[in-house]
C-alpha cells in the first residue's frame, strides 16, 4: 500500500480508487474529494433525519463514515486516546450489485495513543460479500474482526449503548459506550456546509458518550474510562476542489459542554471556518466564521512533515480562549491515507480534553 497518498479521515473519501494507487491521489491532492459527483445522490438542506435508518449506510452517496474517538484514562490517571473508524466509498453510482460485483469499498482505521506511543492499524474490504458493512437495525458496523454493535437495550435516538472493539499486531481495545443525551445534528439541522461554494455533507454526532473498558498495548491491559465522541457523515462531494486539508477539533469541556470546530484550508482563499457549540443539554448553536480564531502556536516534525500540534483557539462571542496541547505530538496515522489524529487537552477560559485531526500536511 502506498503511503504517499496524503489523504485522511473523512478524506478517505478521496476514493479508494486510489487504494495503493497513490500516484493519482498524490497528483490530485484532495481534488477527488471535490471530484465530480454526478450520478451520486446530492446533499441538500432541509433533509429530515430518521433513526435508526440513518445509522445505516447511504450507498447512493459516494462516501460515508462512522467515526469514533475516545479520551480515556486508567485507574492511575494515565491518559489514553482510542480511535475506531469505518469508511465507505462507492466506486460507481447506481443500484447496488450483489456479491463481488458490489461497488462499495470499505476501509477501517483503528488506533490507540498514549503519551509515549501511538499505535495504528488499517484494513480494507470489498462490499457485497460480508467482510465489512453496516446494518442499521440491530445496529452493527464491522470490518474484519473490528466491530461496533448495539447492545440491548439499544436506543436509536442516542445510538447507545454500544460495544466497540479493534486490534492490531501490538494493541487492542474493547469499550462499552453509554449515552443518555440524544444525537446532535451538526451545521444546519444536519446539513453541514464545507465551503462558500456550497459543498456540503450530512453530519450528525453523538458527543456525549461515556466509555468504559480495557485497552491493551504490547500485551499489557489497562482498565480505562472516559468520554467518547461519534461523528456520522455522508456526502457525495464534500470538498471544493481547492481545499487542501483541514484541522478539526472535537472538544469535551469539564463543564459538560462540547465544541466541534474545524478549519478547511483553501489554496485560493482564506480558510473556511465553522463550528458547533453544544450545550450540556444537547442544544447546539452554529458558530459564525468570523467569531472563530484558530492559530497554530507550535509545530512538531512528524513523518517528515511539519504539523501544527499546538493551537490557540478563541471564539469571540462565547468568551472562549484556550491553548491546546497534544497527548502525544507524534500521533501520526501512517496509513495508506496518512494524517494526524490524536487526543489533546486544553486550558484557558475552559478546560477539558478532546481530539484533533489534521489532514493534507
Amino acid at each position, binding site marked *: 500500500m502506498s503511503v504517499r497518498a496524503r489523504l485522511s479521515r473523512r478524506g478517505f473519501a478521496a476514493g479508494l480508487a486510489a487504494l495503493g*494507487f497513490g500516484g493519482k491521489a498524490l497528483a490530485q491532492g484532495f481534488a477527488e474529494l471535490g471530484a465530480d459527483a454526478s450520478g451520486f445522490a446530492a446533499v441538500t438542506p432541509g433533509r429530515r433525519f430518521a433513526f435508526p435508518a440513518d445509522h445505516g449506510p447511504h450507498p447512493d452517496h459516494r462516501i460515508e463514515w462512522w467515526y469514533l474517538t475516545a479520551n480515556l484514562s486508567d485507574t492511575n490517571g494515565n491518559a489514553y486516546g482510542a480511535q475506531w473508524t469505518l469508511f465507505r466509498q462507492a466506486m460507481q453510482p447506481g443500484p447496488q450489485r450483489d456479491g463481488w460485483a458490489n461497488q462499495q469499498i470499505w476501509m477501517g482505521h483503528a488506533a490507540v495513543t498514549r503519551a509515549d506511543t501511538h499505535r495504528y492499524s488499517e484494513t480494507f474490504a470489498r462490499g457485497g460479500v460480508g467482510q465489512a458493512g453496516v446494518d442499521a437495525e440491530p445496529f452493527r458496523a464491522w470490518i474484519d474482526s473490528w466491530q461496533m454493535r448495539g447492545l440491548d437495550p439499544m436506543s436509536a435516538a442516542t445510538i447507545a449503548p454500544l460495544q466497540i472493539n479493534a486490534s492490531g499486531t501490538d494493541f487492542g481495545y474493547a469499550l462499552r459506550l453509554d449515552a443518555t443525551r440524544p444525537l446532535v445534528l451538526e451545521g444546519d439541522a444536519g446539513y453541514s456546509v464545507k465551503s462558500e461554494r456550497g459543498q456540503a455533507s450530512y453530519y450528525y454526532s453523538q458527543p456525549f458518550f461515556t466509555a468504559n473498558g480495557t485497552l491493551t498495548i504490547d500485551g499489557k491491559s489497562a482498565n480505562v474510562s472516559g468520554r467518547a465522541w461519534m461523528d456520522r457523515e455522508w456526502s457525495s462531494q464534500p470538498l471544493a476542489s481547492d481545499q487542501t486539508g483541514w484541522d478539526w477539533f472535537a472538544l469535551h469541556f469539564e463543564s459538560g459542554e462540547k465544541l466541534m470546530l474545524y478549519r478547511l484550508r483553501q489554496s485560493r482563499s482564506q480558510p473556511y471556518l465553522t463550528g458547533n457549540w453544544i450545550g450540556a443539554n444537547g442544544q447546539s448553536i452554529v458558530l459564525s466564521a468570523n467569531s472563530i480564531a484558530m492559530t497554530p502556536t507550535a509545530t512538531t516534525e512528524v513523518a517528515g512533515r511539519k504539523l501544527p500540534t499546538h493551537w490557540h483557539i478563541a471564539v469571540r462571542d462565547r468568551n472562549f480562549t484556550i491553548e491546546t496541547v497534544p497527548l502525544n505530538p507524534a500521533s501520526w496515522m501512517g496509513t495508506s491515507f496518512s494524517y494526524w489524529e490524536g487526543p489533546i487537552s486544553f486550558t484557558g477560559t475552559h478546560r477539558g480534553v478532546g481530539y484533533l485531526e489534521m489532514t493534507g500536511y
Partner: protein
Amino acid sequence: MKQGLWILAVLLSHWRRHPTQLATLLVGLISATALWSGVQALNQQARTSYDRAAAVFGGTRVAMLVGRDSTFSQKLFVDLRRAGWPVSPVLEGRVRVGGRSLRLLGIEPVTFPAETGTIPSIRTSDLQTFIVPPGEALVAPETLSQVGAAEGATLRTDEGAMLPPLKVQAQLAPGVMVVDVGVAQRILHLPGQLSRLLIGQTRGTRAPLEAIAGDKLRYVAPDAETDLERLTDSFHLNLSAFGLLSFLVGLFIVNSAIGLAFEQRMPMLRTLRACGVSSRMLNGTLLAELMMVALVAGLIGLVCGYLIAAALLPDVASSLQGLYGARIPGELTLTPQWWAAGLAMSAVGTLAAAATSLLKAIRAPVLAMAQPYARQQTQQRWLGWQGLAALAMLVAAIAVLIVGNSLISGFAILAALLLGAALALPVLLGFVLRIGERSARGPLAMWFWADSREQLPGLSLALMALLLALAVNVGVGTMVESFSRTFATWLDGRLAADVYVNARDDAQARDIQTSLRARPEVTAILPSGRAEIEIGGWPVEVLGLADHATYRDRWPLLESAPHAWDDVRSGRAALVSEQLARRLNLRLGGRLDVSTPDGAWSLNIAAIYADYGNPKGQIVVNIDAFTSRFPNLPRTRFGLRVTPDKIAPLIDDMRKTFHLDESRLSDQSTLKAESTQIFNRTFTVTAALNTFTLGVAGVALLTSLLTLSNSRLPYLAPLWAIGLTRRQLAGIELLKTLSIAFFTALLALPLGLLVAWCLIAVVNVRAFGWRLPLHVFPLHLAELLGVAMLASLLAMLVPVARLIRMPPAALIKVFADER
C-alpha cells in the same frame, strides 16, 4: 597519469604486433564469459519466471489455506476475516481461449497480501477499473500474442463466457490470466466458490482455524507445497555446473595466451624498468591492461552469452515445462546485475588465469639472470607437486563420494575427479613418453620421444583442456544415450493402457464407462485414482491401479518381492517409486505409513519401480483399497485397453459424445510422443554446452600449438642442418603432436566413463532421485576419439604448413641469432 598512459601504450603495442595472441586471449575470455553468462542468463530467466508464477500462484512465498476439496465456499473467507485472519481469496481454474488453455486466476486486490508481491499494475493504476465491471483480464505480453489479440480486446472463452478487456502486465507468467475473483467465479461457473486463501501479515489476534473452518481448510506453510524453485534447483545446478566447466576450459586458453604474452614481453618489461619505470608503476599498469582486456572481452562475451542463451532458451524452457510445468517466457530479459556479474566473472577469471604470469613478472629482477638449468629443475619440481595435487584431488573425490550426500557434493566429486585427472595428465604423459624413449631404437626415434617430452610443458594446458572437454563429452554422451535407451522401454511399461480418460465428474465417468462396456473393442476398463499427500514433508502422489495383467506384465519394477502384485491387491502393500525409496531410505519388505482421510495406512513395500523425471514421490496401491481410503476423491480417471486398430475411431467417438478435450482424453501414442519429446529436450542444453566446450578445447589446442611452433625453430633447425628435409620435419612434428593428443584422448575415454558413472550414479540420483542403468557405447567412444584426432590435426595444420613453407634463411637465422 600521463606516464601511466605511455607505459600502457608500450604494453599494448605488443598486441598490435601479435594479433593472433590477442585474438587467442580474447577468444578464450570471450568464450569463457559467454558460456558462463549465457547459462546464468538462462537460470536468471527461469528464476524470474518462477517469481512471476509465484506472484500469481501465491504459492510457496506465502502461507495459505487450501480446501479438502478443489473448491470451498466463500463464506469461509468471510468467517475467517471476521475472526481476525488476514486472508485473501483466490479462485483458480482453466479456460480455453482460441483453442489455447490458460490458467485463470481470480484474485481480490483489496485484501491481496502485499508480501505476495505483485500485481503491480493493479497497484499503480486504477483499482477501480480492475474491480468494477467489466473489469480487466491481466495477461503477460506473451499470452497476448499467443491468443493473437490486442490490448483492450474483449474475448470470449471457447465455451462462450465473456472475458474482461485484456490488459498487458509484463510481470505475469505466460499462460496465466488474472481477473477479479468475482469475474473468475462467473467465468468458471463457480459462484461463491474459492480455491484457496492466501494469508497476509497478521493483524492482531485471530481465532484458531478449526474453530472457524472445522476441517474444511488445511493450513499450508510457506514453502511446504511443492515449489518450482526448489524442484528445478537441481536442473539449474546442472546447468550452472556445465557453465562453470566451460568457463574453466575457456580460462585454460586465457591462461596459456597470457602466459605466452608475458613470457614474450619479459625483455620489454626489463627494458621499461631499465629506462626508469618503477616496479609499482609497471605492475599497476600491467594490472590495468589486464582489466581492460577483461572488460572488453567481458562485454563481447556477454553479448555472445546473450546470443547463446537466446538460442538455447527454447530448449531450456520446454524441458522445464515438460519436467516441472514451469512456464518460461520465450524472450530473454536481462538485468543490470547480470551484466555486472558477467564482467566481474570475466575480470576474476582473467586475474586467476594471469595470476602466475603476473606474479612472475612482478618478481622478475630487472636484470636477466642466466640460469640454464633452473627452468628444467623447476619444471621437474613443479611436475612433482602437480602429481601430488592430482593425487590429493582424487583422494578428495573418493572422500566426498563416501561422506557427501547432497547434489553439491555430487558436483564436487565430479570437479575433483576432473581436476585431479587434468593435473595428473602431464605426469602420466611424461611417464608414457619416458617408456617410449626407453624402448626406442635409433637416434631419430630416441629424439622423437625425448623431444616430445621436452614439448610437453608447453602443451600440457591445452592437453588438459582437451582431456576435460573429451571426458565430459564422453560422460554426458554416455548418460544421455543410456537415458534414451532406458527411457524408451520404461515408457512402454508405464503407459500400459491404450487410452487415458479423466472425466469431468463422477457422473460423467459412470456414463462413459457404461457406454464403453457396450463396445466390444474395449477389452478392459481400468479405473485409477490419484491423491496428493505428503510423506516426510515431501509431496507424494498415491496412484490407485486396477489389478490387471496390463500392469502386472509391464510396470517397470526395479526390484520386487515375490508375489508383489498379489500383496498390492490385498491392500496391504504398495509399490514405491525409486525417488521416494531413495529419499526415505525405503527397502523391499519395509513399511511405509501413509496418512489418509481414513487415518494412517501402513503399507508393506512390495516393489520399487522406476519413475523417471517425476519431481514428486509416488506410490502405487490397489484401486479398491485406494477408494476406500480416499473416499471423497473424484473417481474420474480410468485407462482402457482397446483393440489396436480401433483406438482412433473410439477416441473420435468419445470426443464427440462426451466433449472431452485432450487434457481429459488422450491415447497412449500421443502421450508417449509428448513424453519422449520432453525427455529428449531434458539434456539438449547439456549436450549443446558440451559441444561448445569441445570447440573451446579445440581452440585451446590450436592456440597452444601455434604458440609452441614459434619456439620450436631452435629445436628443429639442428635437425634440418644435419639433413632432414622440412617436409620430414613437418611430418615428425605432426606425428609427435598427434601421438600426444592420441594418448590424451585415450586417457579421456576411461575418465569419461568414470564421469558418466558419476553423473548417473551420483549426480542424477541426487538431482532427480533416480538412477539409470549405465550403458557403454563403444561406437560413440570411437567417434569421439576420431573427433579429438581431427581437432588435433586441424590445429596442427597451420603450424605444419608454416614449417613446410619456411624459407631456409629463417632456419639459418636460428644459428646466427644464437649467442
